[in-house]
């Protein structure tokens, strides 16, 4: 394991392709655990994990919580609305107080880009980034990669990310992960919602959704957030759907194997047609299932052994 996948998982940018493959390969056997009658293995017994969510989240928080519980960790959820964060406590004070209660890992979601790294640099516990501002959302990209890999090799696949790439940590993590694993990556969306100079990363830009659909093997359709309309990035939801919506009509000429991903929660009838979301191309619910397995793999790998004790335990493999 390279040092990049050490104490924390902050993003996919610092990881190498082998680190990402290790996580995806480790996720494979974890899928089966969720199919068992007793969905639990004892591997993280006695570990305490705090889910520290400074932003609203349902899917990601529940997915992490299932992953933690299925590995037998003890978990505590801290939501900011009901915590001392409301009383003005700083991020680092909150974390240090939690650490004083002898926790082992923190899963953090925060509105500020870099919050996860800020925390990781200041506490000894493992830190997993569950989304920080517009920066990264590594476990979402990992579950997207796993979902693609279930159906086709990632290397050489043409993946187009559609929508609000500018504000999207999901897009950023996906671009890093896909490029490192050898996929061709494109983005498609209104010019106001695409970052300037994104071509320099080796990413193609499509201005028309029809061209993107014609080119792609995989479409990852991002959620259009309501705030973007208020801020004037997009004229209206109806206009967005008319120009960039992934509709059944637009998929008419798409190959049968085209995969449609969406990180959720979906705005049906805004970025995606209901008939597409529930149709044969959609692997959106597979993403949710894979999310638990990927998060179990990350928790397992980060919780790691202590190498200084490994020396003492030497004497051949246990049998």
């Amino acid at each position, binding site marked *: *394991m390279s040092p990049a996948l050490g104490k924390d998982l902050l993003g996919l940018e610092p990881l190498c392709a082998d680190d990402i493959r290790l996580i995806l*390969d*480790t996720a*494979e*056997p*974890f899928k*089966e*655990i969720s199919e*068992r*009658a*007793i969905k*639990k*293995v*004892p*591997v993280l017994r006695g570990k305490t994990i705090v889910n520290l969510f400074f932003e609203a989240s349902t899917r990601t928080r529940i997915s992490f919580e299932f992953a933690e519980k299925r*590995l037998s960790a003890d978990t505590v959820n801290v939501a900011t609305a009901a915590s001392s964060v409301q009383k003005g406590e700083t991020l680092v004070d909150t974390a240090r107080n939690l650490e004083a209660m002898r926790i082992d890992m923190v899963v953090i979601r925060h509105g500020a880009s870099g919050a996860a790294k800020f925390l990781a640099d200041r506490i000894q516990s493992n830190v997993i980034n569950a989304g920080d501002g517009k920066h990264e959302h590594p476990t979402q990209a990992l579950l997207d990669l796993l979902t693609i890999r279930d159906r086709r090799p990632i290397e050489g696949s043409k993946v187009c990310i559609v929508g609000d790439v500018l504000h999207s940590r999901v897009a950023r993590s996906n671009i890093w992960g896909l490029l490192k694993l050898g996929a061709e990556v494109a983005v498609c969306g209104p010019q106001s919602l695409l970052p300037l100079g994104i071509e320099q990363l080796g990413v193609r830009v499509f201005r028309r959704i029809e061209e993107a659909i014609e080119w792609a093997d995989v479409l990852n359709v991002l959620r259009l957030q309501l705030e973007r309309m208020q801020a004037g990035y997009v004229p209206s939801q109806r206009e967005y759907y008319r120009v960039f919506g992934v509709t059944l009509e637009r998929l008419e000429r798409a190959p049968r194997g085209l995969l449609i991903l969406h990180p959720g929660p979906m705005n049906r009838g805004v970025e995606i047609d209901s008939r597409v979301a529930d149709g044969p191309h959609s692997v959106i619910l597979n993403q949710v299932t894979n999310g638990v397995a990927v998060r179990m793999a990350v928790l*397992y*790998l980060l*919780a*790691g*052994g*202590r*190498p200084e*004790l*490994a020396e*003492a*335990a030497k*004497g*051949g493999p*246990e*049998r």
Partner: protein
Amino acid sequence: MPPEERQLLLDDRALARTLHRMAQDILRQTPDPTLLVLIGVQRRGVELAARLAGEARAQSGAEVPRGALDITLYRDDLEVVGPRPLVGPTHLPVDLDGRHAWIVDDVLFTGRTVRAALDELVDFGRPARIGLAVLVDRGGRELPIQADVVGETVPTGSHDRVEVFVKELDGRDAVEVVRGAKVGV
């Protein structure tokens, strides 16, 4: 430091004979062969379970289901082994309730793998009986665990290794004992 010394314990023909006899022993201790299920411990136990299932089927006429168990997540030494070992697949083909389940492994040493396998199996169901079949018992137990069927017994020290090779993974069938070069700790 003296060099390692490698001894052949079983060649391919001896391994085949041993597996034949082990399958007989398993059937003798299983009153109803239709209830038999063989569960190999990753990695080489899985291949051995497949061979034993073939033998048992040839000898009894009953179809013998077999599974694979990866015990990594049930190990008691994960705190000290870092970086984390790779996890292999676990696959159990049938409901274990009421079955005569046999755990199959290549080498029995400390007994800690078997302890983990027992813990994992009971999370899958309640077999009527669980047996243990190992190709090589090398002594050195750290837990009160013994095998019901043993292919070969060979006393070893803590610096020795027992290496099992199977055609499916290694291209040849053999069991070798490597006598360790180290003396003392």
